[in-house]
């Protein structure tokens, strides 16, 4: 990476007087770009038609990109932490837009394996590096409001899908009369747009100087927060040896499994729960859930700065389990009840994603919080497979047994209640990290806490 030394962390240190409110748009530019992955479904049917195949091999491209997201975040997390956000965003932009380029070439030449390699594999690496690249920087700029800052960025990931979905449909409509013939140019165009957007982010991001702190800020003492906001630092390699890391892994896994399993089946589910629900109404329901998912990331994560990370996860998981149980018992009784319960559930799903970097900062300090976050995101990959698998498998099993309508989902919703209860208990078990995992102060002074 010697040729990329102009992107080094040292070159991006903000000078005196630089406003920290100029940092979030750089993070948003990256997250709004990579959030496109959640709008991949708009390409599914055109790709099925273009390649003359069925949904399974096309759906696998999305799964591969999500698995690569988790793996690359885990593998490259430490590198991202040391290389700095500008270099990481630069590499993420190359991978993500390069993924579109190779994928588009694969579509144009009828080579499906190139779509796997491009969008799925390379693009997935761009997702993982891009997702974690601004997190630790934001936390260092906003030590007094880590939930707000990471919530703002990770809200962008939810917002990215809201932008990409209509934009992709617009592009396909412009390029050809049949969507199947327009996927390749749409991929090329999106790749170019995201490259520019992410490069703008990369060349706008700045890191604070080591001894910088917001004026008048002093970190709360550990006694004030009952030890739940540490002033010490734990390295990524030590963090994964702590029970706190794995308890939080279970917490994130539970929260994501419950949310993603529902999100993936939201449209058919409301139509099965309520006879006569039109496709347009179901699309409106999915749109409402997407907004809840996006806004929950900012609202709940910001709220966690006030109420604390552990209490807010208690709400995500405990109240979430109660809401899922409500759907099991009363779900078919009222459309309004169904919609309100699911909107809150999906806002908690988004909130869980956005609050976790701040939770990690509270437990492990800021030294390698980005790298620790990267390792934790393997829970997302696992949940991305488990959630839809449970819902689809149970629905298929029920259908084979002669069930129909809402009966297709009762068992999977009940399973989600159990998953959330497991996460709830795991969260309750989280205690401050044992001091033996803390970096010695001499090491910590190389990466000091804000004064």
């Amino acid at each position: 990476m010697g040729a990329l030394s102009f992107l080094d962390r040292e070159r991006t240190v903000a000078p005196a007087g630089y406003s920290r409110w100029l940092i979030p748009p750089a993070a948003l530019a990256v997250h709004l770009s990579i959030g496109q992955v959640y709008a991949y479904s708009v390409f599914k049917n055109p790709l099925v038609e273009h390649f003359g195949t069925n949904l399974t091999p096309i759906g696998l491209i999305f799964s591969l990109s999500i698995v690569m997201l988790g793996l690359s975040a885990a593998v490259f997390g430490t590198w991202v932490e040391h290389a700095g956000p500008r270099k990481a965003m630069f590499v993420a932009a190359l991978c993500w837009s390069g993924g579109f380029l190779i994928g588009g070439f694969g579509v144009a030449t009828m080579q499906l394996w190139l779509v796997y390699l491009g969008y799925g594999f390379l693009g997935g690496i761009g997702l993982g590096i891009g997702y974690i690249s601004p997190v630790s920087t934001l936390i260092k700029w906003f030590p007094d409001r880590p939930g707000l800052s990471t919530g703002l960025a990770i809200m962008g990931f939810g917002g990215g899908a809201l932008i990409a979905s209509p934009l992709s449909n617009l592009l396909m409509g412009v390029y050809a009369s049949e969507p199947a013939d327009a996927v390749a140019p749409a991929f090329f165009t999106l790749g170019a747009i995201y490259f520019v957007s992410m490069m703008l982010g990369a060349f706008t991001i700045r890191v604070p100087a080591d001894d910088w702190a917001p004026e008048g800020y002093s970190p709360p003492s550990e006694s004030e927060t009952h030890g739940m906001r540490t002033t010490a630092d734990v390295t990524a390699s030590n963090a994964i040896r702590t029970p706190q890391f794995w308890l939080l892994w279970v917490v994130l896994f539970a929260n994501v499994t419950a949310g993603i399993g529902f999100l993936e089946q939201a449209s058919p589910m409301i139509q099965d729960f309520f006879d006569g629900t039109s496709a347009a109404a179901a699309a409106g329901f999915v749109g409402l859930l997407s907004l809840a998912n996006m806004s929950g990331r900012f609202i709940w994560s910001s709220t966690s700065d006030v109420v604390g990370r552990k209490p807010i996860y208690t709400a995500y998981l405990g109240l979430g389990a109660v809401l899922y149980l409500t759907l099991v018992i009363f779900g078919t009784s009222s459309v309004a009840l169904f919609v309100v319960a699911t909107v809150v559930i999906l806002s908690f799903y988004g909130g869980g994603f956005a609050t976790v970097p701040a939770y990690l900062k509270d437990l492990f300090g800021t030294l390698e919080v980005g790298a620790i976050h990267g390792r934790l995101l393997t829970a997302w990959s696992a949940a991305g497979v488990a959630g839809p698998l449970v819902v689809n498998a149970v629905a298929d099993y029920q259908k084979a047994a002669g069930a129909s309508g809402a009966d297709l989902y009762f068992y999977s919703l009940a399973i989600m209640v159990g998953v959330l209860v497991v996460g709830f208990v795991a969260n309750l078990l989280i205690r401050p990290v044992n001091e033996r995992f803390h970096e010695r102060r001499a090491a910590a002074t190389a990466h000091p806490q804000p004064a």
Partner: protein
Amino acid sequence: MATRAQETGPATEGAGGTRLRALVLWVLVVIALLYGVVATAMKIPALFG
């Protein structure tokens, strides 16, 4: 909210260009987000129709 940074080590890149880029980027990301939110919100009335 106080946001003034303390005097620290030398920056190797001027702040002026980055400030302008950041402000332009704020405008662009807000417009992009509004586009996505409005396009999505327009589907919602069908749910209650």
